[in-house]
């Protein structure tokens, strides 16, 4: 199976994924006041009823605004015109929310379009892999006319004309146009780093790319469509919420429409009461009736709903994750099981030295010294970690390879499975001379036996013990007296064992604990043997592990989980991950991965950082929470609006109803106006929240519900009482409002 190793990926290596814990709060870009100004023309453009009808709540507000405008033209009063203006503003604010959300995507889309320059491709006709590229076979065609299966040659400095796989050659590629990451990445034929994206630039060497996209359906094309929200479709939960909002709207329309006969009757029963701006012999005036409807129908959530959805996708884009559909983002919030690759996600890409365990009568420091010597020229991360460990734990000065003039370093090869150093004696008369080797236990022990030595009895025990605890043992041995001519002078002995261990990224245990409290089960996927896998799983705190995993095992595990009604999320990059990525409810493909993997998943992580799966889940949840919280807030707001408007309408007829005017609003007109103004302003005030998402702290469902109910339920009840009163305190001074 394939694993993603962060250090193999130059883009990823710039950030050490383990060193900094991602911020607890899922951040979105803050609202830039300039954005508001820039989006204002769009907000007015969106008043067009042919597009607005898709948002039924705001469409009704617009109809109400048109109707009151007509009424205000007929009977112009300051009160009527103020209501008209604020009703229009309500719609404009709602449009503004959507325009701002879209505006952020548009900016990103523009940047992407620049990458989509019209390149000319050099297509190879009749070329087969392995053949020499014949200049005669190259034909120049415009990039958009390339078909799936065409092969093109790209050289340093040229743009790759379309998405495809490298089938010959290796090159460094600048993918900053799509990832925003300036460090180049390596793309080579074969394996899991063969995919290239159209619009990126080759920096060195020459590669031959087989095009895998259809014309006009390139990755960049899809990215542009996504961030612009061009074909944004409502997600399942959004549809359900819209049904609820529509039915609430109908209920309130009904409650207000049926009020009219009751109002006429009540007014007729008290003939002595003079007509007011709210009520006359024909019942409640049109302006006030519309105001009541607009205040009651769930305008707050209706205005912000689409902005919340767009902003949710946008938050993913800002983290360099592309979701192919909103449905996938929503599914991420519902995930029950996370399949996480061990390497790169749970552990750092490499193993590190953790202990030097001497065997026989060898001293610990002697072992450390030999281990360090043997690793000085070893540039693998494991080798470097041995040098570092010797220095930090045993205080051994870090020697550079050059300062040992007599040393010859022996590099690791797959045949010898050892590396080390040969130290010549300073002079022939000194005797001595020394060879040190470190490597896999079987190889080193064989080397010792070859040189006439034997391994102490405890060597085997130490080696097995390390394996059982999830580590990798490296045996260190030396042969001395190599300068002596006769082999009789040589002594070979095992010095000890270096324990290499997978390093679990810091903070992972806490993250998995959070996941558990959210009801998400984490499963570690690894190619290690079960013993090692269990040790690492225990250390990292995952709930379960799948050892010696093959792609088939992975697919079977996903299907098993799904049969139990669970939703599964996973990351993958290799072609053999594709079936599992397609099967998973949320499949995040790494951008470094193959085209097949990217095609199969429903998200692509441009940073190729598998840890991001956790963030994706959080963003999905935050999206739903924001919708739920603002719905609750919107409905809870209605209580205060009733207490403002009902007494304003009817206290003249039934003075007892003035008791309901618990905010003690200045006058009936100011009360109604205050409710309408508050209703509009709250939309504007909540745009930042809708774009950013509500605060999300991973915790269990009960705690989260309690918290959000208090803030948005109870808060939604209380805030409008205060808000409407404050507006009333100001507007009573407007001339013309009694």
């Amino acid at each position: 199976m394939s694993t993603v190793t962060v250090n193999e990926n130059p883009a990823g290596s710039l950030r050490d994924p383990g060193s900094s814990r991602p911020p607890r709060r899922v951040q979105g870009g803050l609202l830039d006041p300039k954005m508001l100004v820039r989006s204002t023309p769009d907000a007015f453009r969106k008043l067009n009823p042919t597009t607005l009808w898709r948002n039924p709540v705001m469409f009704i507000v617009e109809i109400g605004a048109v109707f009151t405008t007509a009424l205000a033209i007929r009977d112009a009063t300051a009160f009527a015109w103020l209501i008209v203006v604020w009703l229009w503003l309500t719609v404009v604010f709602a449009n503004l929310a959507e325009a701002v959300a879209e505006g952020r995507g548009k900016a990103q889309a523009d940047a992407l379009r620049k990458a989509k320059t019209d390149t000319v491709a050099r297509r190879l006709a009749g070329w087969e892999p392995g053949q020499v590229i014949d200049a005669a076979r190259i034909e120049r065609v415009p990039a958009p006319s390339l078909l799936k299966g065409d092969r093109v040659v790209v050289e340093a400095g040229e743009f790759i004309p379309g998405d495809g796989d490298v089938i010959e050659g290796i090159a460094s590629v600048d993918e900053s146009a799509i990832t925003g990451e300036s460090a180049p990445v390596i793309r080579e034929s074969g394996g899991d780093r063969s995919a290239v994206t159209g619009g990126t630039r080759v920096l060195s060497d020459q590669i031959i790319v087989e095009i895998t996209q259809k014309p006009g359906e390139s990755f960049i094309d899809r990215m542009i469509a996504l961030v612009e929200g061009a074909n944004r479709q409502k997600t399942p939960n959004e549809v359900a919420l819209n049904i609820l909002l529509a039915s609430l709207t109908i209920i309130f329309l009904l409650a207000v429409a049926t009020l009219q006969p009751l109002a006429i009757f009540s007014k007729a029963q008290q003939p002595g009461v003079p007509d007011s701006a709210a009520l006359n012999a024909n019942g409640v005036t049109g302006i006030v009736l519309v105001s009541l409807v607009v205040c009651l129908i769930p305008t707050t959530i209706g205005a912000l709903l689409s902005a919340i959805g767009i902003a949710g996708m946008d938050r993913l884009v800002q983290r360099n994750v592309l979701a192919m559909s909103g449905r996938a983002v929503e599914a991420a919030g519902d995930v029950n099981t996370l399949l996480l690759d061990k390497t790169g996600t749970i552990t750092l890409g490499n193993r590190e030295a953790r202990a030097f365990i001497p065997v026989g009568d060898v001293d610990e420091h002697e072992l450390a010294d030999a281990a360090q010597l043997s690793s000085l020229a070893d540039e693998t991360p494991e080798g470097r970690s041995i040098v570092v460990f010797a220095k930090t734990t045993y205080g051994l000065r870090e020697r550079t390879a050059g300062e040992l003039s007599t040393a010859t370093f022996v590099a690791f090869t797959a045949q010898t499975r050892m590396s080390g150093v040969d130290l010549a004696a300073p002079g022939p008369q000194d005797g001595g001379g020394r060879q040190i080797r470190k490597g896999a236990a079987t190889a080193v022990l064989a080397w010792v036996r070859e040189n006439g030595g034997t391994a102490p009895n405890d060597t085997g025990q130490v080696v097995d013990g390390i394996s059982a605890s999830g580590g990798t043992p490296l045996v260190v041995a030396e042969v001395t007296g190599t300068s002596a001519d006769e082999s009789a002078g040589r002594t070979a002995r095992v010095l000890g064992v270096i324990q290499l261990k997978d390093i679990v990224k810091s903070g992972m245990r806490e993250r998995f604990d959070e996941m558990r409290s959210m009801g998400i089960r984490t499963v570690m996927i690894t190619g290690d043997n079960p013993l090692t896998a269990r040790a690492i799983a225990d250390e990292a705190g995952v709930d379960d592990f799948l050892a010696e995993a093959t792609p088939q095992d992975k697919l079977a595990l996903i299907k098993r989980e799904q049969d139990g009604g669970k939703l599964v999320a996973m990351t993958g990059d290799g072609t053999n991950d594709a079936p599992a990525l397609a099967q998973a409810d949320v499949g995040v493909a790494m951008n470094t991965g193959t085209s097949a993997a990217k095609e199969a998943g429903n998200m692509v992580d441009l940073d190729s950082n598998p840890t991001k799966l956790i963030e994706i889940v959080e963003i999905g949840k935050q999206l739903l929470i924001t919708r739920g919280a603002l719905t609750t807030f919107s409905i809870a707001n209605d209580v205060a609006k009733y207490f403002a408007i009902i007494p304003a309408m009817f206290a003249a007829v039934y003075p007892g109803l003035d008791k309901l005017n618990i905010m003690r609003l200045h006058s009936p007109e100011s009360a109604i106006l205050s409710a309408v103004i508050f209703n509009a302003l709250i939309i504007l005030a909540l745009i930042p929240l809708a774009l950013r998402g509500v605060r999300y702290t991973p915790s269990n469902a009960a705690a989260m519900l309690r918290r959000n109910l208090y803030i948005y339920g109870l808060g939604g009840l209380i805030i409008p009482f205060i808000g409407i009163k404050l507006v009333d305190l100001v507007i009573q001074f407007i001339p013309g409002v009694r």
Partner: protein
Amino acid sequence: MNTTTAGIIFAASLAIALGLTYRPFGDYMARVYTSGHHLRAEKVIYRLVGVNPDADQRWSTYLRSVLAFSLVSVVFLYAFLRLQGHLLLNLGFAGMEQGQAFNTAASFVTNTNWQSYSGESTLGYLVQMSGLAVQNFTSAAVGIAVAIALVRGFSRNRTDQLGNFWVDLVRTVVRILLPISVIGAIILIAGGVVQNFHHVQTVATVAGGEQTVTGGPVASQEIIKEFGTNGGGFYNANSAHPFENPATWTNWLEIYLLLAIAFSLPRTFGKMVGDTRQGLAIVSVMVVLALTSMFLVHGFQMAHHGTVPASVGAATEGTETRFGVPNSATFAAATTLTSTGAVNSFHDSYTSLGGAVLLLNMMLGEIAPGGTGSGLYGMLIIAVLAVFVGGLMIGRTPEYLGKKIAAREVKFAALYILTTPTLVLGVTALAMALPGERANMLNSGAHGLSEVLYAATSAANNNGSAFAGITVNTNWWNTALGISMLLARFLPIVFVLGLAGSLAQQKPVPPSTGTLPTHRPLFVGLVAGVALIVVALTYFPAIALGPFAEGLH
């Protein structure tokens, strides 16, 4: 012992008795609907009707069975009422006029039992006994059957089978309603409720005047009137009549009976979905709402400011002195909280705010605890909506008992919630807009409006109690309320069964700590809050112009 203490003991003992019933009775009902065994009597019925009792039905078939059965019931009862003059034991009464016969047939088949007639002066014993009393049994059983089908929607997975309506109907009658009614009727007879076929008797009163006394098979109808949350009285005075409700302890028993099934069904629900805590949560919501309402009615009735109430210590107008104000308030709250609509006092005479609470009880949609069956399914619909909003707030696609609440489920729940307010407000507005119907109002001002609102609310919530104060035996009222009762009963049943079908098809999502817990106090509060806020927002303007306008000074 003063009346207040007595009233508290009366209400508290009721609560304790219902609490003791909850578990055994709920478990018994769960066994009734999950057992694979058919009684011999039931087999006979199945053979007569021609149904295979072991074949389950899809939701649409279940629905067709409910509608077909109810349609036959309406037609049969209508004919019965119209043809009374030609039948036995008619006490000399002629057939009912067509508008009223339609209204009465609709009323009894929908478990509303709104009565635009006066029992003792309109109907003979045969119609009362084999027309109305039969519907008292079957309409109650239909409600329970539909509720059980919804419960099966939650408890069953990946199936389109919701059980068999005919089996549920027959078992409800044979195993639950009939046995308890027989015992209960005998107890009521012992308490002084009449049960005879005497003709109308003329007796001399102590004061020397003459009075006609109608007897009849009262106890047998009285028992199911309460137990099946029907509420249609044998006499016009309903449970205030001494032949229907002779003593304080029969009053207690009647209240207990009308609450028993509705308060125990949540246990049946919990048992059938395999988690009795879920049932406890649902019944807790019912208890919270019912106790609040009970407390408010008592408060407004006992502490009313006004010359007469202040001097006698309570609002005694319209109450039977045999029962007193507290026990009447308990009865009134219980009868409006369930869809019973039986009365032992005159609701129109309640204080404005006390009456407003009775009105609100019905506007809650008869869910605390509601009618037999309809209370449970109504409450589960509210719970589904609460789960939807609450579920979003914890960042997951909402799920209730492992079933996802998605667009389809929300659609059915929303349509359910829309139906009743549309009918209540529609009929009220129409009546207030039409000059002819306004002329039928006997009272003017806010109180007159309250009476119209009460009538519309009572019919559209299948309650059947009345504020009176309007001449409702007119063609318009009979027809409007008859249609309203039918739509208010059967449209929600369509949506409930649709929801049940959609839930049963799902494969369940296993619960985890990330799942919204639906058995904790927090959820109880959320459901109660959703119920209250939906009602308050829908009816606030109408209530403001009715009881509030009258009651706030």
